Protein backbone atom coordinates (compact mmCIF):
# COMPACT_ATOMS: atom_id res chain seq x y z
CA UNK A 1 0.00 0.00 0.00
CA UNK A 2 1.96 2.91 -1.26
CA UNK A 3 0.56 6.27 -0.37
CA UNK A 4 1.14 8.56 -3.26
CA UNK A 5 -0.66 10.93 -5.52
CA UNK A 6 0.21 8.92 -8.61
CA UNK A 7 -3.06 7.09 -9.02
CA UNK A 8 -5.04 10.28 -9.31
CA UNK A 9 -2.92 11.81 -12.06
CA UNK A 10 -5.23 10.88 -14.96
CA UNK A 11 -8.14 12.17 -12.95
CA UNK A 12 -6.32 15.35 -12.08
CA UNK A 13 -5.41 16.02 -15.72
CA UNK A 14 -9.02 15.83 -16.83
CA UNK A 15 -10.24 17.87 -13.87
CA UNK A 16 -7.64 20.53 -14.54
CA UNK A 17 -8.76 20.75 -18.15
CA UNK A 18 -12.36 21.06 -17.00
CA UNK A 19 -11.48 23.83 -14.56
CA UNK A 20 -9.49 25.59 -17.23
CA UNK A 21 -12.43 25.38 -19.61
CA UNK A 22 -14.68 26.86 -16.96
CA UNK A 23 -12.39 29.71 -16.11
CA UNK A 24 -11.78 30.41 -19.78
CA UNK A 25 -15.51 30.58 -20.33
CA UNK A 26 -15.94 32.85 -17.34
CA UNK A 27 -13.39 35.36 -18.57
CA UNK A 28 -14.42 35.20 -22.21
CA UNK A 29 -15.83 38.43 -23.48
CA UNK A 30 -19.16 37.85 -25.18
CA UNK A 31 -18.68 36.93 -28.80
CA UNK A 32 -15.05 36.00 -28.36
CA UNK A 33 -14.15 32.54 -29.57
CA UNK A 34 -11.80 30.48 -27.55
CA UNK A 35 -10.03 27.22 -28.36
CA UNK A 36 -11.64 25.34 -25.51
CA UNK A 37 -11.98 22.03 -27.36
CA UNK A 38 -8.19 21.70 -27.86
CA UNK A 39 -7.81 22.38 -24.15
CA UNK A 40 -10.00 19.39 -23.42
CA UNK A 41 -8.10 17.27 -25.93
CA UNK A 42 -4.82 18.19 -24.29
CA UNK A 43 -6.16 17.24 -20.88
CA UNK A 44 -7.41 13.92 -22.17
CA UNK A 45 -4.20 13.13 -23.99
CA UNK A 46 -2.27 13.91 -20.83
CA UNK A 47 -4.57 11.63 -18.91
CA UNK A 48 -4.02 8.93 -21.52
CA UNK A 49 -0.25 9.24 -21.26
CA UNK A 50 -0.46 9.12 -17.48
CA UNK A 51 -2.57 6.00 -17.74
CA UNK A 52 0.01 4.28 -19.87
CA UNK A 53 2.82 5.30 -17.54
CA UNK A 54 0.96 4.09 -14.49
CA UNK A 55 0.20 0.73 -16.05
CA UNK A 56 1.34 -2.17 -13.96
CA UNK A 57 2.45 -0.16 -10.94
CA UNK A 58 -0.65 -0.59 -8.87
CA UNK A 59 -0.41 2.68 -7.01
CA UNK A 60 -3.04 3.56 -4.48
CA UNK A 61 -3.77 7.15 -3.58
CA UNK A 62 -5.50 8.34 -0.42
CA UNK A 63 -6.39 4.73 0.25
CA UNK A 64 -9.49 5.08 -1.93
CA UNK A 65 -8.28 5.55 -5.50
CA UNK A 66 -6.66 2.52 -7.02
CA UNK A 67 -4.35 2.84 -9.98
CA UNK A 68 -4.65 -0.87 -10.62
CA UNK A 69 -4.70 -2.20 -14.15
CA UNK A 70 -8.41 -2.83 -14.09
CA UNK A 71 -9.12 0.79 -13.28
CA UNK A 72 -6.50 1.99 -15.73
CA UNK A 73 -7.88 -0.12 -18.56
CA UNK A 74 -11.29 1.44 -18.11
CA UNK A 75 -9.65 4.85 -17.75
CA UNK A 76 -8.03 4.24 -21.09
CA UNK A 77 -11.37 3.33 -22.64
CA UNK A 78 -12.90 6.47 -21.14
CA UNK A 79 -10.10 8.64 -22.45
CA UNK A 80 -10.68 7.28 -25.96
CA UNK A 81 -14.41 7.86 -25.66
CA UNK A 82 -13.74 11.35 -24.35
CA UNK A 83 -11.36 12.20 -27.16
CA UNK A 84 -13.81 11.06 -29.81
CA UNK A 85 -16.69 12.90 -28.16
CA UNK A 86 -14.82 16.16 -27.94
CA UNK A 87 -13.65 15.80 -31.50
CA UNK A 88 -17.25 15.44 -32.70
CA UNK A 89 -18.57 18.27 -30.56
CA UNK A 90 -17.59 21.55 -32.27
CA UNK A 91 -19.94 21.03 -35.19
CA UNK A 92 -22.91 20.47 -32.89
CA UNK A 93 -22.02 23.39 -30.68
CA UNK A 94 -21.70 25.67 -33.66
CA UNK A 95 -24.98 24.60 -35.19
CA UNK A 96 -27.06 24.57 -32.03
CA UNK A 97 -25.48 27.69 -30.53
CA UNK A 98 -24.71 25.77 -27.36
CA UNK A 99 -22.73 27.45 -24.57
CA UNK A 100 -19.33 26.08 -25.54
CA UNK A 101 -17.35 26.63 -22.36
CA UNK A 102 -19.96 25.03 -20.16
CA UNK A 103 -20.44 22.19 -22.61
CA UNK A 104 -16.78 21.22 -22.56
CA UNK A 105 -16.42 21.83 -18.86
CA UNK A 106 -19.33 19.56 -18.08
CA UNK A 107 -18.16 16.91 -20.51
CA UNK A 108 -14.73 16.92 -18.94
CA UNK A 109 -16.15 16.87 -15.43
CA UNK A 110 -18.27 13.93 -16.45
CA UNK A 111 -15.20 12.12 -17.76
CA UNK A 112 -13.38 12.90 -14.54
CA UNK A 113 -16.29 11.44 -12.61
CA UNK A 114 -16.25 8.35 -14.81
CA UNK A 115 -12.53 7.83 -14.34
CA UNK A 116 -12.92 8.20 -10.61
CA UNK A 117 -15.76 5.74 -10.61
CA UNK A 118 -13.63 3.19 -12.41
CA UNK A 119 -10.74 3.65 -10.00
CA UNK A 120 -12.45 4.14 -6.66
CA UNK A 121 -12.27 1.39 -4.09
CA UNK A 122 -14.62 2.91 -1.58
CA UNK A 123 -18.38 2.87 -1.89
CA UNK A 124 -18.68 6.47 -0.74
CA UNK A 125 -16.20 7.69 -3.34
CA UNK A 126 -17.94 5.61 -5.99
CA UNK A 127 -21.16 7.30 -5.02
CA UNK A 128 -19.66 10.77 -5.19
CA UNK A 129 -18.09 10.00 -8.56
CA UNK A 130 -21.40 8.66 -9.78
CA UNK A 131 -23.05 11.91 -8.77
CA UNK A 132 -20.41 14.06 -10.44
CA UNK A 133 -20.85 12.23 -13.70
CA UNK A 134 -24.62 11.97 -13.44
CA UNK A 135 -25.19 15.63 -12.69
CA UNK A 136 -22.97 16.63 -15.59
CA UNK A 137 -24.77 14.31 -17.94
CA UNK A 138 -28.23 15.44 -16.82
CA UNK A 139 -27.27 18.97 -17.66
CA UNK A 140 -25.67 17.98 -20.96
CA UNK A 141 -28.87 16.18 -21.89
CA UNK A 142 -30.84 19.34 -21.42
CA UNK A 143 -28.25 21.73 -22.73
CA UNK A 144 -30.33 22.63 -25.77
CA UNK A 145 -32.47 24.99 -23.77
CA UNK A 146 -34.64 26.02 -26.65
CA UNK A 147 -35.74 22.46 -27.23
CA UNK A 148 -38.68 21.21 -25.27
CA UNK A 149 -37.77 17.60 -25.92
CA UNK A 150 -34.31 18.18 -24.49
CA UNK A 151 -35.67 19.70 -21.29
CA UNK A 152 -38.14 16.89 -20.83
CA UNK A 153 -35.54 14.24 -21.54
CA UNK A 154 -33.25 15.91 -19.07
CA UNK A 155 -35.91 15.93 -16.42
CA UNK A 156 -36.86 12.31 -16.89
CA UNK A 157 -33.25 11.30 -16.81
CA UNK A 158 -32.68 13.38 -13.71
CA UNK A 159 -35.72 12.05 -11.92
CA UNK A 160 -34.96 8.40 -12.49
CA UNK A 161 -31.27 9.00 -11.95
CA UNK A 162 -31.79 10.69 -8.62
CA UNK A 163 -34.27 8.01 -7.67
CA UNK A 164 -31.82 5.25 -8.45
CA UNK A 165 -29.03 7.12 -6.68
CA UNK A 166 -31.16 7.03 -3.55
CA UNK A 167 -31.48 3.26 -3.89
CA UNK A 168 -27.79 2.93 -4.45
CA UNK A 169 -27.08 5.05 -1.42
CA UNK A 170 -29.45 3.01 0.69
CA UNK A 171 -27.54 -0.06 -0.41
CA UNK A 172 -24.34 1.60 0.77
CA UNK A 173 -25.99 2.48 4.06
CA UNK A 174 -27.09 -1.09 4.69
CA UNK A 175 -23.63 -2.32 3.77
CA UNK A 176 -22.22 0.13 6.27
CA UNK A 177 -24.71 -0.97 8.89
CA UNK A 178 -23.61 -4.56 8.32
CA UNK A 179 -19.89 -4.11 8.17
CA UNK A 180 -19.06 -0.72 9.62
CA UNK A 181 -17.08 0.25 6.58
CA UNK A 182 -17.58 1.47 3.07
CA UNK A 183 -14.19 0.40 1.87
CA UNK A 184 -14.49 -2.43 -0.61
CA UNK A 185 -11.56 -4.46 0.71
CA UNK A 186 -12.79 -4.25 4.25
CA UNK A 187 -16.36 -5.05 3.27
CA UNK A 188 -15.12 -7.99 1.25
CA UNK A 189 -13.07 -9.35 4.14
CA UNK A 190 -15.92 -9.07 6.58
CA UNK A 191 -18.39 -10.66 4.23
CA UNK A 192 -16.02 -13.48 3.45
CA UNK A 193 -15.40 -13.98 7.15
CA UNK A 194 -19.12 -13.83 7.91
CA UNK A 195 -18.53 -11.97 11.09
CA UNK A 196 -22.12 -10.83 11.22
CA UNK A 197 -25.55 -12.31 10.93
CA UNK A 198 -28.68 -11.56 9.05
CA UNK A 199 -28.90 -12.98 5.54
CA UNK A 200 -31.88 -10.80 4.77
CA UNK A 201 -29.91 -7.63 5.34
CA UNK A 202 -27.16 -8.79 3.03
CA UNK A 203 -29.69 -9.58 0.38
CA UNK A 204 -31.14 -6.13 0.69
CA UNK A 205 -27.83 -4.38 0.57
CA UNK A 206 -26.80 -6.29 -2.53
CA UNK A 207 -30.21 -5.88 -4.11
CA UNK A 208 -30.33 -2.13 -3.61
CA UNK A 209 -26.83 -1.66 -4.97
CA UNK A 210 -27.74 -3.81 -7.95
CA UNK A 211 -30.81 -1.69 -8.62
CA UNK A 212 -28.71 1.43 -8.50
CA UNK A 213 -26.20 0.05 -10.96
CA UNK A 214 -28.89 -1.44 -13.18
CA UNK A 215 -30.41 2.02 -13.60
CA UNK A 216 -27.10 3.49 -14.60
CA UNK A 217 -26.28 0.78 -17.13
CA UNK A 218 -29.89 0.88 -18.35
CA UNK A 219 -30.67 -2.77 -17.72
CA UNK A 220 -34.28 -3.87 -18.08
CA UNK A 221 -36.52 -3.18 -16.13
CA UNK A 222 -34.65 -0.06 -15.10
CA UNK A 223 -34.14 1.20 -18.62
CA UNK A 224 -37.15 3.52 -18.99
CA UNK A 225 -35.11 6.66 -19.01
CA UNK A 226 -32.70 5.60 -21.72
CA UNK A 227 -34.68 5.96 -24.95
CA UNK A 228 -36.07 9.36 -24.01
CA UNK A 229 -32.81 10.69 -22.73
CA UNK A 230 -30.99 9.42 -25.79
CA UNK A 231 -33.51 10.94 -28.13
CA UNK A 232 -33.71 14.30 -26.39
CA UNK A 233 -29.99 14.90 -26.04
CA UNK A 234 -27.83 16.13 -28.90
CA UNK A 235 -26.41 13.06 -30.71
CA UNK A 236 -22.86 13.68 -29.56
CA UNK A 237 -23.97 13.75 -25.97
CA UNK A 238 -26.07 10.66 -26.57
CA UNK A 239 -23.06 8.80 -27.87
CA UNK A 240 -21.09 10.01 -24.88
CA UNK A 241 -23.61 8.88 -22.33
CA UNK A 242 -24.43 5.64 -24.04
CA UNK A 243 -20.80 4.65 -23.82
CA UNK A 244 -19.02 6.60 -21.12
CA UNK A 245 -21.65 6.30 -18.43
CA UNK A 246 -22.07 2.65 -19.21
CA UNK A 247 -18.35 1.95 -19.14
CA UNK A 248 -17.88 3.72 -15.82
CA UNK A 249 -20.94 2.15 -14.27
CA UNK A 250 -19.92 -1.32 -15.42
CA UNK A 251 -16.42 -0.85 -14.12
CA UNK A 252 -17.73 0.01 -10.68
CA UNK A 253 -20.39 -2.69 -10.96
CA UNK A 254 -17.76 -5.34 -11.63
CA UNK A 255 -15.42 -4.04 -8.99
CA UNK A 256 -18.05 -3.83 -6.26
CA UNK A 257 -19.73 -7.11 -6.98
CA UNK A 258 -16.66 -9.15 -7.74
CA UNK A 259 -14.41 -7.88 -5.01
CA UNK A 260 -16.58 -6.84 -2.08
CA UNK A 261 -19.63 -8.95 -2.71
CA UNK A 262 -17.87 -11.82 -4.41
CA UNK A 263 -18.61 -14.16 -1.51
CA UNK A 264 -22.29 -13.40 -1.91
CA UNK A 265 -22.40 -14.39 -5.56
CA UNK A 266 -25.03 -16.98 -4.72
CA UNK A 267 -27.37 -14.07 -4.08
CA UNK A 268 -26.60 -11.82 -6.96
CA UNK A 269 -25.82 -14.17 -9.80
CA UNK A 270 -29.44 -15.31 -10.27
CA UNK A 271 -30.61 -11.70 -10.12
CA UNK A 272 -28.11 -10.58 -12.73
CA UNK A 273 -28.97 -13.63 -14.81
CA UNK A 274 -32.58 -12.49 -14.90
CA UNK A 275 -31.58 -8.92 -15.66
CA UNK A 276 -29.30 -10.05 -18.46
CA UNK A 277 -31.96 -12.16 -20.14
CA UNK A 278 -34.63 -9.48 -19.84
CA UNK A 279 -32.26 -6.80 -21.04
CA UNK A 280 -31.05 -8.70 -24.10
CA UNK A 281 -34.53 -9.74 -25.15
CA UNK A 282 -36.34 -6.49 -24.54
CA UNK A 283 -33.58 -4.35 -25.97
CA UNK A 284 -33.60 -6.35 -29.15
CA UNK A 285 -37.32 -6.86 -29.60
CA UNK A 286 -38.34 -3.29 -28.91
CA UNK A 287 -35.39 -2.07 -30.93
CA UNK A 288 -36.79 -3.82 -33.98
CA UNK A 289 -39.91 -1.70 -33.80
CA UNK A 290 -38.21 1.69 -33.70
CA UNK A 291 -38.29 4.10 -36.59
CA UNK A 292 -36.07 6.73 -35.07
CA UNK A 293 -32.39 5.99 -35.42
CA UNK A 294 -31.50 7.48 -32.05
CA UNK A 295 -34.16 5.48 -30.27
CA UNK A 296 -33.09 2.43 -32.20
CA UNK A 297 -29.53 2.86 -31.08
CA UNK A 298 -30.82 3.48 -27.57
CA UNK A 299 -32.47 0.09 -27.50
CA UNK A 300 -29.41 -1.39 -29.10
CA UNK A 301 -27.37 0.02 -26.26
CA UNK A 302 -29.80 -1.51 -23.79
CA UNK A 303 -29.30 -4.86 -25.45
CA UNK A 304 -25.56 -4.40 -25.23
CA UNK A 305 -25.89 -3.81 -21.50
CA UNK A 306 -27.46 -7.25 -21.46
CA UNK A 307 -24.42 -8.81 -23.14
CA UNK A 308 -22.16 -7.08 -20.66
CA UNK A 309 -24.25 -8.50 -17.84
CA UNK A 310 -23.72 -11.94 -19.31
CA UNK A 311 -20.02 -11.37 -18.89
CA UNK A 312 -20.59 -10.44 -15.26
CA UNK A 313 -22.83 -13.39 -14.54
CA UNK A 314 -20.17 -15.73 -15.84
CA UNK A 315 -18.10 -14.43 -12.93
CA UNK A 316 -14.91 -16.03 -14.15
CA UNK A 317 -11.67 -14.53 -15.30
CA UNK A 318 -12.66 -14.75 -18.95
CA UNK A 319 -15.94 -13.03 -18.20
CA UNK A 320 -14.30 -10.10 -16.48
CA UNK A 321 -11.74 -9.66 -19.20
CA UNK A 322 -14.53 -9.97 -21.73
CA UNK A 323 -16.44 -7.17 -20.05
CA UNK A 324 -13.40 -4.92 -20.31
CA UNK A 325 -12.78 -5.76 -23.94
CA UNK A 326 -16.44 -5.39 -24.77
CA UNK A 327 -16.56 -1.95 -23.14
CA UNK A 328 -13.76 -0.79 -25.40
CA UNK A 329 -15.19 -2.33 -28.56
CA UNK A 330 -18.70 -1.16 -27.86
CA UNK A 331 -17.58 2.27 -26.71
CA UNK A 332 -15.58 3.12 -29.79
CA UNK A 333 -18.18 1.70 -32.14
CA UNK A 334 -21.11 3.46 -30.58
CA UNK A 335 -19.45 6.83 -30.23
CA UNK A 336 -18.55 6.50 -33.90
CA UNK A 337 -22.13 5.73 -34.87
CA UNK A 338 -23.51 8.66 -32.91
CA UNK A 339 -20.73 10.81 -34.29
CA UNK A 340 -21.97 10.11 -37.81
CA UNK A 341 -25.50 10.97 -36.71
CA UNK A 342 -24.22 14.19 -35.16
CA UNK A 343 -22.54 15.13 -38.41
CA UNK A 344 -25.72 14.44 -40.37
CA UNK A 345 -27.82 16.73 -38.21
CA UNK A 346 -28.66 19.99 -39.82
CA UNK A 347 -30.01 23.14 -38.37
CA UNK A 348 -33.55 22.80 -39.59
CA UNK A 349 -34.06 19.15 -38.88
CA UNK A 350 -32.44 16.51 -36.73
CA UNK A 351 -32.25 13.87 -39.49
CA UNK A 352 -32.64 11.14 -36.98
CA UNK A 353 -35.62 9.32 -38.45
CA UNK A 354 -34.87 6.15 -40.29
CA UNK A 355 -36.25 7.50 -43.53
CA UNK A 356 -34.03 10.56 -43.28
CA UNK A 357 -31.10 8.32 -43.99
CA UNK A 358 -32.55 7.12 -47.29
CA UNK A 359 -30.04 7.57 -50.05
CA UNK A 360 -27.23 8.68 -47.82
CA UNK A 361 -24.89 6.62 -49.98
CA UNK A 362 -25.54 8.90 -52.90
CA UNK A 363 -25.01 12.08 -50.95
CA UNK A 364 -22.19 11.25 -48.59
CA UNK A 365 -20.71 7.88 -49.52
CA UNK A 366 -17.94 8.26 -46.98
CA UNK A 367 -20.26 8.79 -44.04
CA UNK A 368 -22.52 6.00 -45.23
CA UNK A 369 -19.60 3.59 -45.41
CA UNK A 370 -18.38 4.50 -41.96
CA UNK A 371 -21.87 4.20 -40.53
CA UNK A 372 -22.11 0.76 -42.09
CA UNK A 373 -18.91 -0.31 -40.42
CA UNK A 374 -20.12 0.87 -37.02
CA UNK A 375 -23.54 -0.71 -37.39
CA UNK A 376 -22.12 -4.03 -38.50
CA UNK A 377 -19.74 -3.96 -35.57
CA UNK A 378 -22.63 -3.32 -33.23
CA UNK A 379 -24.42 -6.24 -34.83
CA UNK A 380 -21.40 -8.44 -34.27
CA UNK A 381 -20.18 -9.11 -37.79
CA UNK A 382 -16.68 -10.43 -38.26
CA UNK A 383 -14.08 -9.10 -38.70
CA UNK A 384 -15.14 -6.14 -36.60
CA UNK A 385 -14.64 -5.30 -32.94
CA UNK A 386 -18.18 -6.17 -31.93
CA UNK A 387 -17.80 -9.73 -33.16
CA UNK A 388 -14.78 -10.45 -31.03
CA UNK A 389 -16.43 -8.83 -28.04
CA UNK A 390 -19.51 -10.99 -28.31
CA UNK A 391 -17.55 -14.10 -29.02
CA UNK A 392 -15.44 -13.46 -25.98
CA UNK A 393 -18.48 -12.88 -23.76
CA UNK A 394 -20.32 -15.96 -24.91
CA UNK A 395 -17.20 -18.04 -24.46
CA UNK A 396 -17.07 -16.90 -20.87
CA UNK A 397 -20.72 -17.82 -20.38
CA UNK A 398 -20.20 -21.29 -21.83
CA UNK A 399 -17.12 -21.85 -19.73
CA UNK A 400 -19.13 -21.14 -16.62
CA UNK A 401 -21.89 -23.40 -17.81
CA UNK A 402 -24.47 -20.73 -18.60
CA UNK A 403 -25.49 -22.29 -21.89
CA UNK A 404 -28.94 -20.74 -21.70
CA UNK A 405 -27.50 -17.25 -21.54
CA UNK A 406 -25.15 -17.91 -24.41
CA UNK A 407 -27.97 -19.22 -26.57
CA UNK A 408 -30.23 -16.29 -25.79
CA UNK A 409 -27.33 -13.97 -26.46
CA UNK A 410 -26.62 -15.47 -29.84
CA UNK A 411 -30.28 -15.48 -30.81
CA UNK A 412 -30.83 -11.87 -29.85
CA UNK A 413 -27.67 -10.93 -31.69
CA UNK A 414 -29.05 -12.53 -34.79
CA UNK A 415 -32.33 -10.67 -34.43
CA UNK A 416 -30.53 -7.43 -33.77
CA UNK A 417 -28.67 -7.79 -37.03
CA UNK A 418 -32.02 -7.23 -38.64
CA UNK A 419 -32.41 -3.72 -37.41
CA UNK A 420 -28.85 -2.73 -38.02
CA UNK A 421 -29.14 -4.00 -41.57
CA UNK A 422 -32.37 -2.09 -41.95
CA UNK A 423 -30.44 1.15 -41.58
CA UNK A 424 -27.78 -0.05 -43.96
CA UNK A 425 -30.36 -0.99 -46.55
CA UNK A 426 -31.98 2.38 -46.09
CA UNK A 427 -28.71 4.17 -46.71
CA UNK A 428 -27.70 2.21 -49.78
CA UNK A 429 -30.76 0.98 -51.55
CA UNK A 430 -33.64 3.27 -50.80
CA UNK A 431 -34.45 6.42 -52.65
CA UNK A 432 -35.44 9.44 -50.55
CA UNK A 433 -39.20 9.75 -50.19
CA UNK A 434 -40.69 11.98 -52.79
CA UNK A 435 -41.73 15.33 -51.42
CA UNK A 436 -39.22 15.16 -48.64
CA UNK A 437 -36.24 17.39 -48.99
CA UNK A 438 -33.16 15.29 -49.64
CA UNK A 439 -30.53 15.07 -47.00
CA UNK A 440 -28.37 18.11 -47.11
CA UNK A 441 -24.68 17.38 -47.33
CA UNK A 442 -22.99 18.79 -44.24
CA UNK A 443 -19.32 19.53 -44.36
CA UNK A 444 -17.35 17.20 -42.18
CA UNK A 445 -14.95 19.20 -40.01
CA UNK A 446 -11.37 17.99 -40.14
CA UNK A 447 -11.22 17.10 -36.47
CA UNK A 448 -14.43 15.07 -36.62
CA UNK A 449 -13.20 13.35 -39.77
CA UNK A 450 -9.99 12.37 -38.05
CA UNK A 451 -11.97 11.05 -35.10
CA UNK A 452 -14.18 8.99 -37.36
CA UNK A 453 -11.12 7.61 -39.08
CA UNK A 454 -9.55 6.75 -35.76
CA UNK A 455 -12.71 5.03 -34.56
CA UNK A 456 -12.89 2.98 -37.75
CA UNK A 457 -9.29 1.93 -37.45
CA UNK A 458 -9.83 0.87 -33.86
CA UNK A 459 -12.94 -1.09 -34.81
CA UNK A 460 -11.03 -2.98 -37.49
CA UNK A 461 -7.96 -3.37 -35.34
CA UNK A 462 -9.92 -4.88 -32.49
CA UNK A 463 -11.73 -7.11 -34.92
CA UNK A 464 -8.72 -8.39 -36.78
CA UNK A 465 -5.87 -8.29 -34.27
CA UNK A 466 -7.61 -8.52 -30.92
CA UNK A 467 -5.02 -10.65 -29.14
CA UNK A 468 -2.98 -7.79 -27.81
CA UNK A 469 -5.88 -6.09 -26.14
CA UNK A 470 -7.39 -9.33 -24.96
CA UNK A 471 -4.09 -10.02 -23.27
CA UNK A 472 -4.11 -6.60 -21.68
CA UNK A 473 -7.65 -7.06 -20.44
CA UNK A 474 -6.89 -10.51 -19.09
CA UNK A 475 -3.79 -9.22 -17.37
CA UNK A 476 -5.58 -6.33 -15.79
CA UNK A 477 -8.27 -8.45 -14.22
CA UNK A 478 -5.84 -11.15 -13.20
CA UNK A 479 -4.00 -8.90 -10.82
CA UNK A 480 -6.81 -7.65 -8.69
CA UNK A 481 -9.52 -10.22 -8.37
Amino acid at each position, binding site marked *: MLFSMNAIVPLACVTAAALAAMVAEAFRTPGERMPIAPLGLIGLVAAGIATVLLWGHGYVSFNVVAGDDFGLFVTGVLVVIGLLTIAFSPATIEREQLPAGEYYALTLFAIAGMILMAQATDLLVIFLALEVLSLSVYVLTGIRRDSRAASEASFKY*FLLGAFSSAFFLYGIALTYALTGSTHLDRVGQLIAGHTFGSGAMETFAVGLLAVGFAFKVSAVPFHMWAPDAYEGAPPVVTGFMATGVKAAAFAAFVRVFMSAFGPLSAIWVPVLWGLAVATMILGTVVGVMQTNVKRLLAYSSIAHAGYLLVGMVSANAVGRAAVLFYLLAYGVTNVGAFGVLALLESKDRPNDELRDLAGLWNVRPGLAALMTVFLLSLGGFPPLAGFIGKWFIFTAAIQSGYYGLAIIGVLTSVVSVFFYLRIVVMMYMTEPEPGRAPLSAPIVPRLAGAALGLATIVVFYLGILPTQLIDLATQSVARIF
Partner: protein
Amino acid sequence: MVPLSQYLILSAILFVIGTLGVFVRRNLITILLSIEIMLNAVNLTFVAAGRAFGAVDGQIIVFFVMTVAAAEAAVGLAIVIALFRHRESLDPDAFTSLKW
Protein backbone atom coordinates in the same frame (compact mmCIF):
# COMPACT_ATOMS: atom_id res chain seq x y z
CA MET B 1 -31.31 3.09 24.88
CA VAL B 2 -33.22 2.47 21.72
CA PRO B 3 -31.87 -0.51 19.80
CA LEU B 4 -30.39 -0.01 16.38
CA SER B 5 -33.00 -2.13 14.67
CA GLN B 6 -35.71 0.36 15.58
CA TYR B 7 -33.78 3.16 13.94
CA LEU B 8 -33.25 1.02 10.89
CA ILE B 9 -36.93 0.20 10.68
CA LEU B 10 -37.83 3.85 11.04
CA SER B 11 -35.44 4.78 8.27
CA ALA B 12 -36.84 1.99 6.08
CA ILE B 13 -40.33 3.36 6.60
CA LEU B 14 -39.21 6.85 5.68
CA PHE B 15 -37.40 5.55 2.64
CA VAL B 16 -40.53 3.78 1.46
CA ILE B 17 -42.61 6.90 2.04
CA GLY B 18 -40.21 8.74 -0.22
CA THR B 19 -40.38 6.01 -2.85
CA LEU B 20 -44.14 6.10 -2.68
CA GLY B 21 -44.09 9.84 -3.16
CA VAL B 22 -42.08 9.50 -6.34
CA PHE B 23 -44.59 7.00 -7.67
CA VAL B 24 -47.88 8.56 -6.70
CA ARG B 25 -47.27 12.27 -6.96
CA ARG B 26 -47.37 14.14 -10.22
CA ASN B 27 -46.22 17.53 -9.09
CA LEU B 28 -42.56 17.83 -10.02
CA ILE B 29 -41.67 19.77 -6.89
CA THR B 30 -43.28 17.17 -4.67
CA ILE B 31 -41.46 14.40 -6.49
CA LEU B 32 -38.17 16.15 -5.83
CA LEU B 33 -39.17 16.54 -2.19
CA SER B 34 -39.87 12.81 -2.05
CA ILE B 35 -36.36 12.12 -3.23
CA GLU B 36 -35.10 14.35 -0.42
CA ILE B 37 -37.12 12.22 2.01
CA MET B 38 -35.40 9.12 0.65
CA LEU B 39 -31.97 10.62 1.11
CA ASN B 40 -32.84 11.67 4.63
CA ALA B 41 -33.98 8.18 5.47
CA VAL B 42 -30.61 6.92 4.33
CA ASN B 43 -28.89 9.50 6.51
CA LEU B 44 -30.70 8.15 9.52
CA THR B 45 -29.38 4.68 8.75
CA PHE B 46 -25.85 6.01 8.54
CA VAL B 47 -25.98 7.92 11.78
CA ALA B 48 -27.68 5.11 13.67
CA ALA B 49 -25.24 2.52 12.37
CA GLY B 50 -22.31 4.80 13.11
CA ARG B 51 -23.61 5.20 16.65
CA ALA B 52 -23.89 1.46 17.06
CA PHE B 53 -20.29 1.03 15.97
CA GLY B 54 -19.19 3.94 18.10
CA ALA B 55 -17.51 5.19 14.95
CA VAL B 56 -17.29 8.60 13.44
CA ASP B 57 -17.72 7.45 9.82
CA GLY B 58 -21.51 7.45 9.86
CA GLN B 59 -21.67 11.12 10.72
CA ILE B 60 -19.08 12.04 8.11
CA ILE B 61 -20.82 10.13 5.35
CA VAL B 62 -24.02 11.99 6.20
CA PHE B 63 -22.13 15.17 5.53
CA PHE B 64 -21.30 13.97 2.04
CA VAL B 65 -24.84 12.82 1.44
CA MET B 66 -26.06 16.28 2.32
CA THR B 67 -23.68 17.75 -0.21
CA VAL B 68 -25.00 15.40 -2.83
CA ALA B 69 -28.55 16.24 -1.87
CA ALA B 70 -27.82 19.91 -2.23
CA ALA B 71 -26.16 19.49 -5.60
CA GLU B 72 -29.02 17.34 -6.82
CA ALA B 73 -31.57 19.85 -5.61
CA ALA B 74 -29.77 22.70 -7.36
CA VAL B 75 -29.57 20.88 -10.68
CA GLY B 76 -33.01 19.31 -10.39
CA LEU B 77 -34.70 22.61 -9.73
CA ALA B 78 -32.76 24.22 -12.55
CA ILE B 79 -34.10 21.55 -14.87
CA VAL B 80 -37.61 22.20 -13.57
CA ILE B 81 -37.17 25.90 -14.33
CA ALA B 82 -35.86 25.12 -17.80
CA LEU B 83 -38.80 22.79 -18.35
CA PHE B 84 -41.20 25.38 -17.11
CA ARG B 85 -40.09 27.75 -19.81
CA HIS B 86 -41.60 25.34 -22.29
CA ARG B 87 -44.63 24.19 -20.37
CA GLU B 88 -46.90 25.87 -17.96
CA SER B 89 -47.68 22.74 -16.01
CA LEU B 90 -45.67 20.80 -13.51
CA ASP B 91 -47.46 17.53 -14.19
CA PRO B 92 -45.01 15.03 -15.71
CA ASP B 93 -47.82 13.24 -17.54
CA ALA B 94 -48.47 16.40 -19.46
CA PHE B 95 -45.12 15.99 -21.14
CA THR B 96 -46.17 13.80 -23.96
CA SER B 97 -43.68 14.57 -26.64
CA LEU B 98 -41.55 11.76 -25.28
CA LYS B 99 -43.10 8.44 -24.51
CA TRP B 100 -42.36 6.44 -21.41
